[in-house]
């Protein structure tokens, strides 16, 4: 592939529990959920004037969060078999990605059906949210930072405040993908500077 190639598309199996990026993102998620829950509960109890009842509640939430973490690991390991197939596409407009995991799609739709059948708005909402996350795209103009990890064959694309997508490449196409990402983001920066 040459540097001016307009598009590159590939499919890859992203490792889960043996992938430091997945582990980092998972820990970050649980950390912020714990912090948010802790702050919300503390403020609620403080306004209710019953702060002394807070520690057992926090302990219970910590146990629930621990249980969810345990399930999260088990699902990644046993249900997904420690891999998550994805397809990525890069062109001059931006980056697109979609999940190729049949199990994930099945689980998301099952969550919606179970939610509707049981009359649970939370279950239905969670399923619909998961379905909406099965694919996505990011225009180059929204990419602020590109971080490359050649040893892991991963390229991280960030907007102004967070990681939006990590491009998992194969050992064979990493160099091509990195070149195309560099070219597209440089072209976009140059275009933005010209404006």
């Amino acid at each position: 592939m040459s540097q001016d190639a307009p598009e590159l598309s590939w499919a890859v199996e992203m490792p889960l529990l043996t992938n430091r990026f997945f582990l980092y993102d998972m820990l970050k998620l649980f950390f912020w959920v714990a912090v948010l829950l802790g702050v919300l509960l503390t403020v609620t109890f403080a306004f209710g004037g019953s702060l002394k009842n807070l520690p057992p509640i926090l302990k219970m939430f910590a146990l629930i969060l621990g249980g969810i973490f345990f399930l999260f690991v088990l699902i990644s390991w046993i249900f997904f078999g420690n891999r998550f197939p994805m397809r990525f596409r890069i062109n001059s407009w931006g980056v697109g990605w979609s999940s190729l995991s049949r199990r994930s799609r099945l689980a998301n739709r099952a969550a919606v059906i179970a939610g509707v059948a049981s009359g649970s708005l939370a279950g239905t909402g969670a399923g619909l949210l998961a379905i909406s996350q099965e694919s996505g795209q990011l225009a180059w103009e929204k990419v602020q930072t590109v971080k490359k990890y050649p040893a892991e064959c991963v390229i991280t694309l960030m907007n102004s405040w967070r990681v939006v997508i990590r491009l998992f490449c194969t050992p064979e196409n990493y160099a091509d993908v990195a070149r195309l990402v560099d070219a597209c983001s440089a072209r976009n920066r140059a275009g933005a500077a010209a404006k």
Partner: protein
Amino acid sequence: MKIFEFLRRIALLLGVGCFLWLWFAGPPVLLEVSRADFAAQYERQYGKRQYGLMGVMELGDKLIREQTNPGSLEAFTARQTQHKLLTAGDSNWAVFYRSLPAQAAFYGIDQPPFAAIRPQIQTLFLRSQMAVMYIPVVDGSRTAHIEIHYRNRPRETKAPTQLLYPYRLRAWLWLAGALLVYFLLPGMRRSGGSAAYSRIAPLALDAMGLLFAAFFFGLSLYVVNSTDEVFGSEFGMSLFLWAVGCAGLILVMWAAKIASYRIMASSSAICVDTLWRRREIPFSEMSEIGYLVRGDIRIGIFVRSRDGRTIKLDWAGLLGFDAVLAAINSAQVRRAEDAPA
């Protein structure tokens, strides 16, 4: 070196297991000992009482008191201690009685001076299921009683921690030893030209596996009244919790497997190191190589040797796999059709 990856994890699991066991281990029975005060009990039950508002309950209580002949304090004491007396011939019990503090004190059943009358205490408890017993002692001119409460749920008492969990100091030694072995035993390192997992992956799996295994093993020790019950009346529940905790053990063993996994490429051969064995295929013996596919996704390569052996090399999560690919490409081995993983 590879075996260290296994041994250090076994040491870690054993050390943490021993730490948890000793942390929660404690005596199945404690004795809560105090001076029996029958006079105060007598007064509480039969003495004159100043009632506030006279409701139905208070009127009934007053009537019962008026109708009951309480008898003497001696008769009351005899009634209270009937079938609950322990015979202790030793005169040292009087000294012990006088040394008792005003509040109740806790003793282990194997602790002196109770160790000498342990069979009596246990027989009396098993025979009568009464948790209160008395030892009569001669205190000067009168007969006093040592009151003993047989506590077979020690964790629910207010006994001091040193008595409830006497091995906690020793437990730390096991944990420190396990961590020392885990961190000091040399691990496998990735050399240039080889493909291996990032060091973070096995470390994270170790942490998660240890957390899960320790939590469920610890939970089985936490919910019982004493560690004796783990292999006794609560064995079924313990077994269930350990089975769930086994997920953690498997994670740790998986970590050992991936920590010792290496694919090394030299100018003449490919060598695959796993936890238990090493396979080497010289390029001259390779008959063909091709991609491993799952669905339509390439997930690695396979190498087939002239004697029919096939080595599958999954590249997901491996660092430095490009060096292995470069070595294989330079060897100009015949390309085969893609093969399912």
